[in-house]
């Protein structure tokens, strides 16, 4: 347990320091959201309607952008080999790393959502709904993305491949995230139905992600 919490503390510290790159995700999120009005035009009513979709797409791309740091940096300095060889189960170590990555790179996206919601003319309750769905959904993005990151790190040049492999897997999260936000804003469906499916997707990814990532690390690094 102490090994896992030490691993998490170390990962968060590295991510937040200079060169860690966790906050670049937030900057990217901001930039993508600001780009959207240039593309669709500054029509506030239209932006309100598209708002949840824009925020979700931005968060998805931002979390994808930082994913390759999850194992790559550790692989470069050799600490990944130590983690694989240590007595701590690799599945748990992967889960701890993903959780640390989400705390450092995913949580700031959710904190930034109210500001970006303001830019997209979303009112208070709509912003709250989007932030809530992001809170429930981004862990699923991190934990399924971790599988792609583990595959990419064993291939040495997996940067672009990571996006191709991970994006199709994240479609259900995107669908239910946007569906839950839309349900909260315009109805007619109750918010609870898509939101609980979103939570279920996150829980499934907690189970599947660490095992698949650990399997591909164990088989790939030799």
């Amino acid at each position, binding site marked *: 347990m102490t090994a896992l919490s030490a691993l998490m503390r170390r990962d968060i510290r590295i991510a937040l320091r200079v060169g860690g790159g966790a906050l670049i995700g937030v900057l990217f999120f901001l930039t993508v959201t600001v780009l959207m009005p240039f593309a669709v035009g500054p029509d506030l009513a239209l932006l309100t309607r598209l708002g949840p979709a824009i925020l979700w797409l931005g968060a998805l791309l931002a979390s994808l952008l930082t994913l390759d740091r999850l194992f790559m940096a550790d692989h470069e300095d050799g600490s990944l080999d130590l983690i694989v060889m240590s007595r701590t189960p690799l599945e748990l170590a992967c889960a701890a790393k993903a959780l640390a990555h989400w705390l450092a790179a995913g949580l700031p996206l959710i904190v930034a959502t109210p500001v970006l919601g303001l830019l997209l003319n979303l009112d208070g309750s709509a912003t709250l709904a989007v932030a809530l769905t992001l809170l429930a959904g981004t862990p699923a993005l991190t934990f*399924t993305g971790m*599988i792609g990151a583990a595959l990419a790190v064993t*291939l040495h040049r997996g940067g672009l*491949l990571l996006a191709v492999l991970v994006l*199709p897997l994240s479609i*259900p999260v995107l669908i239910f995230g946007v*569906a839950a936000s839309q349900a909260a804003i315009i109805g007619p469906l109750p918010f609870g139905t898509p939101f609980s499916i979103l939570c279920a997707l996150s829980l499934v990814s907690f189970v599947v992600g660490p095992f698949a990532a650990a399997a591909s690390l164990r088989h*790939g690094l030799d």
Partner: protein
Amino acid sequence: MSLIDLANPTKFLALTARVLPWLAGATAILLLVGLYQSAMAPDDYQQGATVKIMFIHVPNAWLSMFVWGIMSIASLGTLVWRHPLADVAAKSAAPIGAAFTFLALVTGSLWGRPMWGTYWEWDARLTSVLILFLMYLGLIALWHAVEDPSRAARAAAVLTLVGAINIPIIKFSVDWWNTLHQPASVIRMGGPTLDNAFLIPLLVMAIAFSLLFITLHLAAMRNEILRRRVRSLQMMQANQRAA
């Protein structure tokens, strides 16, 4: 002759060399019979002659999912049993599966034009098959990203199994998404349940396409084994020159 005996690539090559001509012949005969029956099938009272696209479209769509199932079993063979031919089977199935998926999309689109008035509709089925196609392409890209076949095999096996878990989830979520956002604007092919005049040619075509897949798959596996032999021979030669 059990599955373990086939682990020896030489025995596999010898067996498939004997089986393949018969399989190819059976495939050709069944395809001819199926095509003839499809051509002779009566026109649908609503769709006219376009209903005949179904005899090509439906077998392709079935196989697009069936091939992912085959690859998942082969991936289990790679990761769990370390069967030496499992990764050969998984690798050579991927492009064939992608081709079947692509054909299902194209024939579906051609069928959709006269029936729905559009080549593409963001309908639940179409969307989930399109995502399946994207996943096939990602898997093929993964196979081609690594030089060492056994390393690539294990990475691809993990991705195939994750995909096998995810495809039902994607299918289900897309179904849900469609019913949430779009009222039933798509003209459905409801009609009467399939009459025997359509059902029999369809089943013949389905068996013919399955045989076609098995034939192509075995041939592709033979090619892959031979390709690996050539590769290791070339590397041996390069080593000897260097030494």
